């Protein structure tokens, strides 16, 4: 099979399109690249959706945690503590077990036991907790003068939050939030190793990489390819978030802008 044919057959293998059977015997480099790249679709799917939906819960959690009312503060604190204090791996296992037993109760929970929804929910809660803590930290470090100026203009409540607090919080939190996004994408590789079944061998990039490594007993080809893809993905995230960061900071003089620094200390 030529490389073009391989790409045609396997480029969307992880979604169930194209060839059913995985390649056998001697694997070509092209097959490695195509299948692992095909698996990357899942990583992007999980990461992007969890990030987008988790953002809203994260803001709510941050506001809740900084609220003086314990009715809002306590649940937000507990949510953040539970999801940040326990390993993501165990969260996946626990959620999968829960969904599996709920499935017995009602057919409504059927889709929850498959990765596309069940794992997404776990990742959504997880990233909401981590980002919520980041946003909470940013809320605490909003310059006092900004709030006072808002008060002086007579802004209160929702108006003040929407125009002053929220944009400043986002601006301050953005570099750390970029990090969180990168490591969320890394965390998506855990999904198919933690209970959630890869239905018809439709897995993510790491699933295929470890499939190749298992079959060929040679880790030196699939994992560097996986690394290549993830470095590419990381660069894309950094450039996307960098563009947003420039927009958030555009009203500030050059030297006061927040720079992004990659801080690689966030496995979950």
């Amino acid at each position: 099979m030529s490389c073009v044919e391989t790409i045609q057959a396997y480029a969307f293998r992880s979604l169930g399109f194209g060839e059913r059977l995985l390649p056998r015997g001697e694997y070509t480099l092209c097959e490695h690249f195509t299948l692992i790249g095909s698996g990357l679709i899942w990583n992007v799917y999980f990461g992007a959706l969890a990030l987008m939906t988790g953002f809203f819960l994260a803001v709510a959690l941050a506001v809740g945690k900084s609220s003086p009312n314990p009715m809002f503060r306590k649940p937000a604190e507990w949510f953040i503590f539970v999801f940040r204090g326990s390993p993501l791996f165990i969260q996946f296992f626990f959620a999968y077990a829960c969904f599996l037993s709920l499935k017995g109760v009602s057919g409504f929970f059927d889709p929850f036991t498959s990765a596309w929804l069940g794992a997404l929910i776990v990742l959504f809660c997880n990233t909401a907790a981590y980002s919520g803590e980041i946003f909470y930290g940013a809320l605490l470090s909003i310059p006092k003068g900004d709030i006072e100026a808002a008060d002086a203009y007579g802004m209160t409540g929702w108006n003040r939050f929407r125009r002053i607090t929220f944009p400043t919080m986002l601006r301050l939190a953005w570099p750390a939030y970029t990090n969180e996004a990168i490591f969320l994408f890394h965390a998506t590789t855990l999904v198919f190793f933690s209970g959630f079944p890869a239905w018809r061998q439709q897995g993510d990039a790491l699933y295929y990489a470890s499939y190749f490594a298992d079959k060929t007993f040679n880790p030196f080809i699939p994992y560097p390819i996986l690394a290549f893809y993830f470095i590419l993905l990381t660069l894309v995230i950094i450039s996307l978030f960098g563009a947003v960061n420039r927009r958030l900071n555009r009203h500030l003089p050059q030297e006061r802008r927040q720079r992004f620094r990659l801080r690689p200390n966030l496995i979950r």
Partner: protein
Amino acid sequence: MFSYCTDPSTLEGLSWLSCYLTTGKHVNLYISVFVVLTLLAITAPTALVFGFGAASAARSKFLPLRWFGKGYTSIVRGVPDIAFFLFFVIALDQAFEWMRHKVKCPDWDQPIRQGIDFVVCDAAKLPLSTSPQWVHETYGFFLAVLTFSIVFGAFAANVLYGAMRAVPRAQIETAEAYGMTHRQAFWRILVPQMWVYALPGLSNLWMVLIKSTPLLFLLGVEDIVYWAKELGGTKTARFTDYPHPNWHVEYFFALLVFYLCFTKVSEVVLDRVMTRLTKGQATAAGEAQRKAAA
């Protein structure tokens, strides 16, 4: 375990539970908690040593060494850590076997990689196929510890490298003004002062390390996740005296609580250590402490 446990089918309620939780397999589960703790106890100092070595290498004046240090510290930046875990376990295993193969069977003429097989002579197998089960398990655990140390060494190197740069430049300049050599200034001035800058990062790393211990399961070690999975599955009366339906939810909930408690306790202890270490330091936190006391 207890005397009344001889006939489990007659037991009810709490006494059933007390017997159930003390069966041999559950004892294995409790032992695997110590496996996790052992892993932490070995990995943390080893990773710190690796990290220290790499951070000092990254500052070296010798170019290849600096490349090595920088390369090692940056491996963790763009790639998921779990990929490293899966990679290093096989790669290290093969590296060891390859080295032993070169030493023990010099007259072996066939290639080692035959298509999709990795073939070394019998004497070079690790562990030897004749060795008892516990050797296999210990070897697997050893590989896991080494893998954890390499990956977390890279994380620690990042933290320590930053901490070394955070020590005020004037301190080193003063040391040089006193006529200390580069090496003396490093060991006598830089290293003692860098810890207070490194500690927030290192304590964060400790939390991350705790939370990554379940990954041992992926490396083939029989850790708590393995036993929770094993024990929580449906048990029928034919194979066990303690039949029960699928209890995965309960078991994983217990693991969740275990990890939550573990991280919470660590957090409290590390906060205390930090308070203790910042006492009298010329940092913002140290200054705040001084003011609060006054």
